[in-house]
């Protein structure tokens, strides 16, 4: 590994840590009752948003769903605006109209995340279609979970992207659960990535908790898309540590996954990146300073969000139309 590889890994580590610590803070605010909007936390999956977004450049589009704080932050969305949105403030990234599940950051190519499962997949096809028609080199990334692959929109979108040769990355974050149902309660076989074959599209099954593997595989797919060679389906296997929604661990709603959780704690993408960095000679001080800095940044963002005003009821009916 070269020093630039080491630098990249430090960058990826920092992004993952920032997502993790933000999500942990949100979990605490949910538990404290300060956050009411439904929060679907990304803890455990950080390597995917981080690795994929690190391969993108200005002008690329990123689409997400209900569990998209990580996509927003990894892509460079503003932290204070995120916290303000989740706390229902008018300074939020969606002006207090969206909450956790509707994030917007046009300046980094996020034109909206929404919680209808699979709904932004065809939108990603649409931004890619626009790029192709305008002969731009922008790439569109659709992040979605394994549940989304059960939706018709997913299959229709794969087909459209394939026949029109569009620059799209279909990024499946297979965390093995759709809400409370496990993967094999919802389909006959654990074969998500193979779906691409029938659409004539390349695909791969990858370790979603290895940020370097995520980065390398996304890099290949992005280069391919940018070169006009069409879409790719990437299945990243991972696990969400917390429950489907909120700060709990889902045992409260009867999902028995304690044994699985222990295995996945051991595969923590952030610890694995830290171990790799340590092996490359990164000092203890780097980690300590980073944690302090990120916590300080989050503290400041929370305080700024708390100070911000709520939207005015006088504006209730504004923006139904643009």
């Amino acid at each position, binding site marked *: 590994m070269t020093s630039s590889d080491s630098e990249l890994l430090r960058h990826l580590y920092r992004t993952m840590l920032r997502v993790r610590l933000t999500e942990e803070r949100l979990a605490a605010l949910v538990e404290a009752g300060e956050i009411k909007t439904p929060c679907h936390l990304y803890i455990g999956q950080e390597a995917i948003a981080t690795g994929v977004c690190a391969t993108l450049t200005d002008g690329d589009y990123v689409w997400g769903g209900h569990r998209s704080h990580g996509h927003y932050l990894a892509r460079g969305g503003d932290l204070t605006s995120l916290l303000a949105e989740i706390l229902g403030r008018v300074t939020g990234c969606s002006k207090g109209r969206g909450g956790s599940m509707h994030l917007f950051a046009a300046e980094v190519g996020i034109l909206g995340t*929404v919680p*209808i499962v699979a709904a932004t997949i065809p939108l990603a096809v649409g931004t890619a279609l*626009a790029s192709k028609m305008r002969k731009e080199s922008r790439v569109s990334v659709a992040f979605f979970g394994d549940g989304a692959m059960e939706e018709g929109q997913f299959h229709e979108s794969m087909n459209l992207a394939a026949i029109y040769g569009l620059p799209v990355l279909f990024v499946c974050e297979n965390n093995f659960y759709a809400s409370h149902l496990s993967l094999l309660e919802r389909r006959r076989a654990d074969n998500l990535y193979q779906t691409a074959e029938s659409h004539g599209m390349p695909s791969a099954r990858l370790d979603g908790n290895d940020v370097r593997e995520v980065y390398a595989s996304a890099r290949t797919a992005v280069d391919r898309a940018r070169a006009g060679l069409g879409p790719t389906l990437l299945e990243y296997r991972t696990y969400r540590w917390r429950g489907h929604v909120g700060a709990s661990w889902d045992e409260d709603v009867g999902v028995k996954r304690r044994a699985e959780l222990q295995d996945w704690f051991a595969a923590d993408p952030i610890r694995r990146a830290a171990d790799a960095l340590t092996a490359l000679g990164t000092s203890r001080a780097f980690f300590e300073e980073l944690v302090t800095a990120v916590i300080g940044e989050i503290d400041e963002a929370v305080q700024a969000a708390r100070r911000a005003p709520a939207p005015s009821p006088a504006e209730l009916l504004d923006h139904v*139309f*643009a």
Partner: protein
Amino acid sequence: MRTLTYAQAIREAFEQLLASDSRVFVIGQGLWSPWYVGTSMQDLDRRFGRDRIIDTPVSENATTGAAIGAALAGMRPIVVHPRMDFMLLAADPIINQAANWSYMFGGQIGVPLVIRSIINRGGEQGAQHSQALQAFFLHVPGIKIVMPASPFDAKGLLIAAVRDGNPVMYIDDRWLYDSVGEVPSEMYEVPIGSGVVRTSGSQLTIVASSWMTEQALEAAETLRARGLSAEVIDLRSIKPWDRQLVLTSVRKTGRLIVADGGWTTGGVAAEIAATVGNEAFDYLKAPVQRVALPDAPAPTSRVLERAYYPTDKHIVAVAERMMARVQSLALKVV
């Protein structure tokens, strides 16, 4: 002035929009086939290329979603559903996504999308090849709906819809495709939300849209011959609809029939009747009447079809009952 058919007027609007704005493209099923869109898009694929006139796989849902994505990226897509019935498969992108998008993100972005939806009924096509579902979408904030009745409006409303910058559902009716009217050759807009008085009258207001406007005009002719003066308002836009025009007319005539091509219950006519009841109650000389489809799916047998679709004759019959009621009340008072 030059005349065109309704279908030719739609085609001319497409042609001029595509020629004048590189952001405009068209996507949907059957666009290369007169089987789906009649003559309303004939040869556009040859003139503008099949990468701008995109005839898609059978995927209403993703096609509409892709059009939304392209609109958010700054294009001006027109997504075509050659039958309104099939468009229900795109209910999520239309209602959950396009209609909500501006509001959900605090007005930071709009969805400049036109959804062209064709009513194609009659001919024993039955329940799933006949529906006029404008009322479904009337219910949803964040989407505009236009329903042209004349060739002039067919062209001007399509141009206005593309230039509006918001999701606009453009609903045309194949029963109108051969109707002829004056159409300027230059590009022009018919303002969305603005209705028009098609025939002035003093005793009764008939509000209609799309194909029902032709029926209302026929009915007004018949009524005039029988000594009753009816005013016909063509709504042109269902959402927003021209409240002021309708209320002004009803305040003058005191009687209102709303004719709509959808079902009666929860329909466009019900909404207009409720508004008139709220805002012009004191001017009404008779209860507001609806002329719309009975609450049943479209049948196939031509005998049942004839009984199913209201026409000018229904409007005339309802108008005469309204007048008779007033006369009988007047007699009682005497």
